[in-house]
Every structure is written in C-alpha cells, then in structure tokens.
C-alpha cells in the first residue's frame, strides 16, 4: 500500500520546495524553526525523515561544494523528485477535500465551552 506523507514529511517537502536551490539541512532547519515558531527542532529530527524520504524516492540528494565554514565538509542538497511532487500534490488535494465545509474558526458541536 502506498503510504501517505506524514505531517513532518509534508513540512520538510514544502520547505525544500520553497528553498529551491538552497535546500540543504541548515536552512531547512532554520526555516522550520521560523515558521513553526517552535525551537525544539533537531538536526537528527530532520535527518531521519529525510533518509526515509530519500529511500522511498520522494527526494533525492546531491553533494555541494565544501566550504570552510563547515570545516571543509560539503553540503548535502535535497531536491524533490517527480514522485515527490506527485505525493505533495496528492496531500494538498486530500487536505483541501478534508477541510472543505469546515468553518474557519472551529467550534465544538456542543456549543461554546
């Protein structure tokens, strides 16, 4: 069975999509921290889903040029594959369908709390 993307995957993919050519781990982390206003993102928390996504063919990675700022180590850039784009599209449509007809402010059925 084809599995749906998780919320973390979705966030990661959208970040990569937005960052375009600049999508390596450090800006990804920074962007995530920025938009989600949560500070408890860890690098490890990014590597694991990225490894999984890469294994599933959702993203692909390539090595960039080494820079001195990184102790001479190269960056690993991520790029969404076609399969990944389709999966993202799918999630977006699913989301749209699911949210359709639900008011902007979500109330409890039993009225105000």
């Amino acid at each position, binding site marked *: 069975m084809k599995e749906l993307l998780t919320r973390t995957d979705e966030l990661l993919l959208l970040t990569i999509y937005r960052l375009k050519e600049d999508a390596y*781990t450090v800006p990804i982390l920074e962007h995530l921290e920025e938009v989600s206003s949560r500070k408890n993102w860890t690098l490890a928390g990014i*590597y694991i889903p990225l490894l999984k996504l890469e294994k599933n063919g959702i993203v692909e990675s390539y090595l960039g040029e080494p820079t001195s700022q990184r*102790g001479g180590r190269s960056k*690993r850039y991520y790029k969404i594959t076609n399969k990944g784009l389709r999966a993202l599209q799918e999630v977006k449509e699913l989301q749209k369908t699911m949210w359709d007809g639900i008011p902007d402010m979500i109330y409890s059925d039993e009225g105000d709390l």
Partner: protein
Amino acid sequence: MDTKNRNRLYFAEKILRQILPDKIINTAIGDYEEIFTEIYLERGSFAAQRWIIYQILMSLFPFVYSTICWRATMLMNYLKFAIRNLKRNKVFSSITISSLSVGVACSMMIFIWVKDELSFDKFHKNYDSLYRVITETEAAGQIYRKPAVPTPLVVTIQDEYPEILNTCRFRGGFTGWLVRYGEKSFINDRVGMADPSFFEMFSFKFLEGDPKTALNERYSIIITEDMAKKYFDDEKSLGKQLILTGTRTAMTVKGVIENIPKNSHLQFDFLIPIENMDYWWSEDFNNWERMRFNAYVQLIENTEGAEFSQKISDIVKRHYPETAITRTYLQRLKDVHFDSEFSQDEENFGKGNKTYVLALSALAVILILIACINYINLSTARSIYRSKEIGIRKTTGANRSDIIKQILVESTLLSFLTIVVSGVLIFLFLPIFSEISGKEFSYGYIETLMFLPILVGTGAAVCLLSSTYLAVIQSANGPIQALNKYINKQNSGENSLRRVLVVAQFSFSILFLISTFVIYSQLNYINNKDLGYNKDQIIYFYGPRGEMENSPESVKNELLQNPSILSVTYAYPPRSISWYTTDIDWDGKVPGTDHLINVQSGDYDYLKTFEIELVEGRYFSRDFAGDESNYLLSESAVSILGIKSPIGKRFTYRGELRSADPEGRIIGVVKDFHLGSLHNEIRPILIKFMPTFPFMCAKISPENIPGTIEFFENKWKEFGEVRPFSYTILDETINDFYRNERKIGQILKYFTFISGFIAFIGLFGLTIHIVEHKTREIGIRKVLGASVREIIIMLSRNLLVLIVIAAFIACPVGWMLMNNWLKDFAYRIELGPGIFIISLLISLFIALVTISYQTIRAGFSDPVKSLRNE
C-alpha cells in the same frame, strides 16, 4: 573560534560519529559545525555548547534505537542457541563450567592471599618516605643483620641530617607482662613502646584521643579497640588507669586505636612512651653498646632513600669507635615484610617470602590455564556436532564475523555462569582457605581488595580469551567444509594441538604432585630428625618472682614433688642461635684466630631436662665445688676450636658483659645439638653455668598434662605470685620455625588435588568424546573379531602415552625446582627416583580409572547398535 570550543566541537563530533548513519555522516557533521559556529558567533560559546549538547541528546534515541533493535534480536537468537547447546551436552557443559569455575575460584583465593601479602604496611600515609634502620655486625667472617640500633642513634641521626623529618624508636613488647585494671588482670606479650613521634609517622586510626599528643606524657598508654572492650567493656576508656607490672607504674589511657591490621608488621595491643623503660634500662639510653629498640626514620619528601642510606653507613663508628657495628643502612618500609630474614630465628616468624608469593601467583595462573585447556579441548572436540549448525548459518548468509559474534555470545554466557559458580565456591570455601593459609580473610576484608571487579574481570577474560581460539577455528571453515564432517579437519578426535594441551595439563598436575610429595617428605624428615636433644614434653615459662625470688632451688624442689614433673632447669631452651661470641680463650689458642661460638646457659639439670648426650667428662654437679666457672663444649666446638683432649683444659669466656669471669675449665663434651631451625647448619656450642632465673624449662610426663598444668597454677598461687602461670610448649615453638614451609605445603596439597581434579575431569570428557567419535570403528573392529581387551587398549593407549610424556616433562622440572627449594635447609632429604616413580604411577592409575568406565563400556558395546547408527 578558540581552541577550547574547537576541542568541544571535536568531542561532540566523536559522539555523533557513533550514532549517525554512515551515509550522511560527513555532511551531517558539516551541518552541526556550521550551526555551532553561527550560534557561537551570534550568542557566544555557552549558547553554542548548550545547543550541541541538546542536539546530541535528542539524536541519541532515534538512531540508536533502530540499530539496537536489530542487534538485540540477533543476540537473543545467539543466546537461545547457546543455552540449547549447554543443555544438550550436559556432561560437557558441566565439565567445562565446573573446571573453569573451580580454576577461577582457586586462583582468586590465591590472588587474595598474594594481594594480602603485598599489602603489608601500605595503609600508612607515609608509606613511601618511611624506613627502618638496619645494622650489620661482623663476626668470624660472617655478617649478621639486625633491625635493632644503638639507643642514642635516633637522636644523633636527626640532629645531623636535615633530610630526616622524623625518627622513632619502637619495641614490640616483652613476654608475660601483666596488665591490670581493678579486678581484671591479664598477661599480655604485646605491650609495645615507642617515641611520641610514632603516631605522626605511622597512620594508626584513632577512635578516641589525639594522635599528636597521645604519647607526650610519660605515664600515658594507647590501647586497641579489643583491649578497650576487654578491660572497660562499654565504658569510656579515656582517662582510665591501667597498672603495668612490667614498669611497675599506673598508666592513663590517652587514646584508643582501631585494632592493628593483620597486614602491619608493627604489632601491639598497648603502647607506652619509651622513656618508661628506664625502669629496666636507665643506663642504656645513652649507651652505644646497647641495641634495645628498632628504629624508624621518615625522610623529607623527594629524598632518595638509597642515596641517603649511603651517607649514614658509618654513623655508629663515627660516634662510638669501639662499636662492633660495621654498617648501618635504611630499609624501605616497602621491603620490611619481605626482607626480614635476620640472623635471629625468632625475628623471622610470620615474615613474608617473595619466592612463595611468586610461586603461588604462578600456581594461580597455571590453575586457570589447566581449566582453560579443558574448555578449549572439549569445545573443539564437540565442534563436530556444532559444525552442522554453523554450516547452515553460513549457507543462510551469516558471514565470518557473525559466527564469531555467536561464539562470543556463548562464551559470555559461559563466563557469566563461571563467575556465579566461582563466586559461590569462594563464598563457601573462604573460611577453609583462611584456615589453611593461616590468615584471616573475612568477606568484608576481601571486598576492600577490589575483589568483585577482579573476579568478574578474570572470569570474563578467561572465557573470552579461550573462546577467541574457538572463534577463529570454527569460523574459518567455509559452509561446505563445515557441513561435511569428513572434510572437516579439526573434528578428528585427536588433533595434535589437543594432544599438546593435554600433555601441558598433566605436566603441571604431575609437577604439583611431585612438589607436594617432596615438601611433605621434607617436613616429615624435619619432624623426625634427631635434634640432639629431646624436644617432647618440654614447656618453658617464667618462674615465680616475689618472695620466691631469693630461693630458686626451693622452687625447683617444690615443683619436683609432683611425680609428673620429671625435671626442671633454669635455662633457655635451645630454640635460637641469638647468643654467640668470639670472645673466648683457652689453653693453646693460636693468637689472632677468631672463632664464632654459640653460648647456651644452664644449671645443674640442663642436660638431664633436654636429654643431651654426654660424650666425655661430666656435667655440672652440685658435688663439685666451683663448677659455676666451668664449661662444657659440643663435639663440633671442640673440633672447630681445635682443642685436643679438652677435658681439664683451662677455658675462659667473657660474654656480653665484658666482666672477667674467673678462669674455669672444660669439664665435659656433649654431642652436637641443633639450635633453632634445621635451615641452619649445626653450630659449635659452649654451655656455660648460669641459671637463667626466673626463666625456666620443665620436662613433664605425657600423662595427665592438664593435671600437671593445674598443679603449676596452684603452686603459683601458693608462692604468692601475682601473675597467673603461663607457658609455651617447646615442640610448638620448633614447629613454628617451619610455619612458612608447612603453610605452602598445605596450600600446595589442596591445589594439587584441585588441579588433578580439573585435569582428570577434562580427560574424562575427552574419553567420552573419543569413544563417541569412534563408535563405528569400534563396531567394525568387533565385527571383525576384536576382543574387549583389544578395544580397551586401543582406546586408552593414546591417552596413557600422553600422560607418560607429561611425566617425562614434569620430572626434570620438578627435580630442579624442588632441589632449589631444599637448598634452604641445611638438613634435607635426598631426591631419589622414588618420588618421581610414585607420582607417575599415581597419575597413570587415576587416569586409567578415569577413562576405564568409558572404554570398558565401549568394549562391551553391541556392534549391531553402533553400526546401525549411520
């Protein structure tokens, strides 16, 4: 970024390398470094560090979890197989585990013993800067060492040399002092005396009182915990007064110390300031002739002891040119326990012997080795049954490292079992071992020696090391080799390595057997050796003082009224060689020749009490006037001094007192007799008339000894003596000379038995294996008409040949070692072939018994059954 932070970053990198997946590792570390640097530049090093620590902690779980999960599954599988294997081969597993744990347990106990021996005096804080002063004298070309120094030396030495931080005199006590508190009075031989600096130099732990001032006042006394309990029960001890008969004074308790550890060479129950001894030796404190005390010095830090020792070598001569002391030097506190063999036998009791420590350490290693050999032999032998399993693992994709892992898991299980079983064994046998070794090992005590970690370490190391060999061998085969037992080489029951190991095992066992035999024959020889006097039923003790002091002869007569007391004499028993002299002169002495002669003193009943044989002349007798100034010589003394027809020759001796004795004559010659232990040659002896009042010896009849002792006790009360009657048995004193040898003999006896046990159960296991392996061969031979006898011979021959080879290795080694050991004794047994032949026969016999059950069963087995097996 500064180096400090760079280092921290490197450290973090190291951790991350362990946990991050290999694929992204380099880029990931780059990421970490980039962010770290950024935070560092923006918010400083603290924030950066906090960030990286948080990152590491958060990464640990997700990455580690996935790896561990898989490894754990495999581990569980290995463990399951290991347990199944142990269960399936019950005989082999129990042989392996029992020999390993017995081996480990024994060597651990030896280890405890060795560690205790090496721990002597280590508890002193100033262990490294403390020294004992040794003096050497020379007489007739022989050097005599003593741990005693002229009394004024310590003061002089401290004044003269700035290198010396502190000095202290010490003496361990005298026999038979009475210590009284109110109604309670006990005889104590351990009333030590020392200078006030004693507790500054030596770290004995005070429970009450102040170590700095404890000995400052003249009438103060320090007591041990046990003594405090004995005299004062639970009352507070400080300030109480104890009466000492030795100094005729009342002493105030100024401190209570913990009981002196057994591994201290300084031993005492009470300690008093040394100045109290002026009651006895008032003139000796400034006398360079007198050597009453041991002396210790503490050098200031960083002083080279050996160098400093050179400086003081002639110190006595400089201050007192007439001295007999030729050299003075320092001995490290470290060496005191092992280097205390002095010319006087009594000083040597309970002293360590480095050779024995080495020998026992070797024994410990060998025991473990023998146990390991069992493990290796049996498991390589059994690998024939394991190879199928390994083959299948290999065909299903296990590589060499997986097989090695599996074997390591098995050995971990094995070492766990070994550690548990040997722990239990040690727990059970420690009291027995304490008794054999003559030390007091409590469970609490051995824990302080880092016992548990070392037990676990040894157990694990032993199993892992021996399984390394297995791992290499078993994993080496390819799957086809492993599956096909006809190709598999090491399965052939008797490969050459196994033979070598068996020979090694039995060589050691036979070596131990030989050593035990020799030691016991030597001890037996010593026991039965004619010493030249009769040591049986002789007790020695202090006679009554007080009113009886003036009538020694009447004390004798009173005692002799009891028919059980056969003879009484005022004399020292011939238990030591401590009193010797060259200061003798006789008719016809060649001037300028020096002869060392030992002096024994006695009265009219000396020869009779000790049953020393008279060769010529007569003994001191009440019937002759003036016998007090006459002498007797032993045969060897006559021949060494070169006196011809000695009877009636004029002879004079100026003993230690240097007061001229009236000229006397030699009135008799006695047969040689041994002074002290048989480690020494027989010595020339001069017997001098000098009653050693109040010290006396008595020969008592072997019947009703308790009655006789009671008689003594009652007489003592009758005499109005304040001290209770207390005595020493000469036979025990003499036995004590060989205490070290006896102990080593006893330890060796048990460990010979144990090493034999391990070797023979190994042999037993191997026989089972060989019989099993050759089932078909036996079947075919039987079908073709082999008799039971031939089958048995076929199966046993090879193993017995191994034992004979082992014996041929063990015998010469044993001969060399034991000859060396025997050199310590001036009187010793000859090593004939007998002991070696007996050892070989015993080993062969036990080996035959061990393997015969299996071989006989195989011989009688039904060939139909064994052949149908295929």
